[in-house]
């Protein structure tokens, strides 16, 4: 922890971040105030050469598919036979916003986001604060709580579909002894809470680790000073720890929301979106149409909406909530100049 702070001090102060690249510095040092064209060009070529592989991959694997998806989302297309030719305009989008299942997806997505923010993250924060105390076996607990995050979604899904099996599953065997059996994933009215339970089990450890590292980045002196000033442990948490954890909490909220919008694999393995669409998410609906019904144009329209929702959220959130945390990133670049 100490070491981490020292290295952070070695980083250049914000003002120097826009310093010219090493190559450009060398070029500038070689001659008069204004470097000759050749040198400037070489500098830029160097930049281009270094950027090229990343740009290429980004273009081919990220930008191109997004553009193709946006393009094909205005066609009726089964995904076969090259590019589509049956232009339908906004029909796919109109159909989507008239479809109960898709509107349900939006609602269920919102429910999952709210539950994550109100239940999962505070829970993770609480556990992180507990595990920050000096206690025996602390490392073991941390490892145990973090372990579910390392498991793949599919393994988690298979595991919990066995545990939550309504007939003879572990959960009902144990809860049945006190008369609290449930249909879990097989009952439209309990499937969402069950799904959220599994999500929490799977992901809270990740947020816990985030909070834990954030908490450890807070210098001991600060909390100590507050204690000397007479603050109780709640007050220290409320007025010192929590505000200083701000950046960590903001990024954790960000990841949690984006994750909820794109949730697919866990749902797919656990319920396939059922029973009767009651646990379907946007991504599952998209998969159903793209891979089961061969309506790739419509599926792409859904993916475009998903992308737009994520993008708008990401930009707005970064611009207004994470402004201080991401200085120098795209949204704040201009204001820094």
């Amino acid at each position, binding site marked *: 922890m100490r070491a981490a702070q020292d290295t952070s001090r070695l980083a250049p102060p914000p003002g120097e971040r826009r310093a010219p690249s090493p190559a450009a510095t060398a070029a500038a040092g070689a001659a008069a105030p204004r470097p000759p064209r050749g040198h400037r060009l070489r500098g830029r070529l160097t930049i281009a050469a270094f950027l090229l592989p990343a740009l290429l991959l980004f273009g081919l694997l990220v930008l191109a598919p997004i553009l193709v998806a946006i393009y094909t989302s205005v066609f009726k297309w089964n995904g076969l036979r090259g590019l589509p030719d049956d232009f339908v305009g906004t029909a796919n989008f109109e159909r989507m916003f008239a479809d109960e299942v898709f509107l349900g997806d939006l609602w269920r997505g919102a429910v999952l986001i709210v539950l994550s923010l109100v239940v999962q993250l505070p829970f993770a924060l609480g556990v992180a604060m507990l595990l920050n105390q000096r206690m025996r076996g602390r490392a073991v607990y941390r490892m145990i709580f973090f372990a579910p995050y390392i498991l793949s979604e599919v393994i988690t899904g298979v595991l919990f579909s066995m545990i939550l099996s309504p007939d003879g599953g572990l959960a009902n065997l144990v809860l049945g002894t006190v008369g609290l059996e449930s*249909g879990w994933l*097989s009952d439209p009215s309990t499937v969402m809470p069950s799904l959220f339970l599994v999500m929490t089990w799977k992901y809270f450890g990740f947020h816990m680790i985030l909070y834990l590292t954030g908490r450890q980045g807070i210098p001991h002196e600060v909390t100590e000073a507050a204690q000397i000033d007479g603050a109780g442990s709640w007050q220290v948490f409320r007025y010192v720890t929590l505000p200083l954890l701000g950046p960590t909490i903001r990024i954790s909220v960000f990841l949690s929301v984006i994750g909820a919008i794109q949730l697919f694999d866990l749902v797919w393995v656990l319920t396939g979106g059922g*029973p009767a669409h009651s646990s379907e998410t946007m991504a599952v609906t998209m998969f159903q149409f793209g891979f089961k019904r061969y309506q790739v144009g419509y599926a792409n329209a859904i993916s475009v909406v998903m992308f737009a929702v994520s993008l708008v959220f990401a930009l707005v959130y970064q611009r207004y909530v994470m402004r201080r945390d991401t200085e120098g990133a795209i949204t704040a670049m201009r204001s820094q100049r």
Partner: protein
Amino acid sequence: MSLGRRSAAALVAATLLLGGCGGGGDGEPKAASGSGGKVTVEWWNIGTTEPLKSFLARMATEYQKQHPNVVIKNLPIENEAFKARMTTLNQSGKTPDLFTTWGGGVLKQQVDAGLVKDLSADAASWMGSFTPAALQPYQVDGKTYAIPADIGMVGFWYNKALFAKAGVTEPPATWSAYVDTVKKLKAAGITPIALAGKEKWPGHYYWAYLAMRIGGLAALQQAATDHDFTKPPFVEAGRRLKELADLDPFQKGFLGAAYNTPDGQAALVGNGKAAMELMGQWAPSVENEAGKGLGDDLGFFPFPAVEGGAGKVTDAFGGGGGYAVGTDAPAEALDFLKFISEAKNHRDVVASGAVLPVLKGAEDAVKDPNLATVARALSSASGFQLYLDQAYPPAVGQEVNDSVAELIAGKKTPEQVAQAITETAKSE
């Protein structure tokens, strides 16, 4: 920050160049087939359960022994995963050299996209040895696009001991007798029916069979062309199914149950926890694989007739499985199919109980008495209808599955089901 114009141009040029290289590599693996080197035949199938699994593996090994220059890459993939992977591959304009197909609407789309080889001419010399019913699902516009490997039909697989325990001595032959049977089983504290609600396709069998028994084969065939599923037989089928579902005949938590998992539909019947399931000819082997299997207690009866319906009790609903050949596949792919289909090999796999005969005159190779019943029912069938989720275009088939699942879950009325399917069919 702005790059200079020249460096930007260089960047673009380099991008195009590298992109071009990537594209050029595509056709490369196929180039190896032919002269000199080894020919690889990539073969995707769904033989993940015994005894089919080891039969397919043995076929590959034996063929390779006879043809040292051929490598058969045998890839058994679980049913649902198979469909998802196949779709992805198709959308990139490719297929494996050899792959499982169920014919019908999906195969037609693949044919329309130019992904599948027309076998009518190349396999003409031996095509005649298959039964017409087995070939039918793979025929599009008079041409044949796959070689059948299995054919079968859906019917009720039941536990004789549990039926006896509930006082049912005869398998029901009419729908009202069937409903009575379900009530008797329930009264005896037995789960009447196992159903994999999570997977949807097992549920569609009920609706399809009811529609067939009520409206006859003609009703289903007409719906395929006029896209109108709101006619009385389809709504009536929904009503009957709803009546059945209202009796609560399925196992606890059936809406979340899978088909072949250890707590799924097949295992429940195989372990004697549910009295019956409506399933295809593969049911006994999956019951043995996922559960203990019922042995002599297992029986088969055809889907009962609906009183006053136009359909005959001898009309069969089912489908097969065959292998299609990719457009770019080497000639060895078809030769390998011919090898699998040889009478000796086909009789072997039929005798193992994995499939039912697709070759004329191989009926006597069926050893298992239950499968023999199915084979007899098939050979004497008065008509044949392919699974609806295969026969119709994929979107319509899935809508049937989805809507019927919602009907069984009590989320849609019979009229809404008919309406939803019609809307999808009209928009395709």
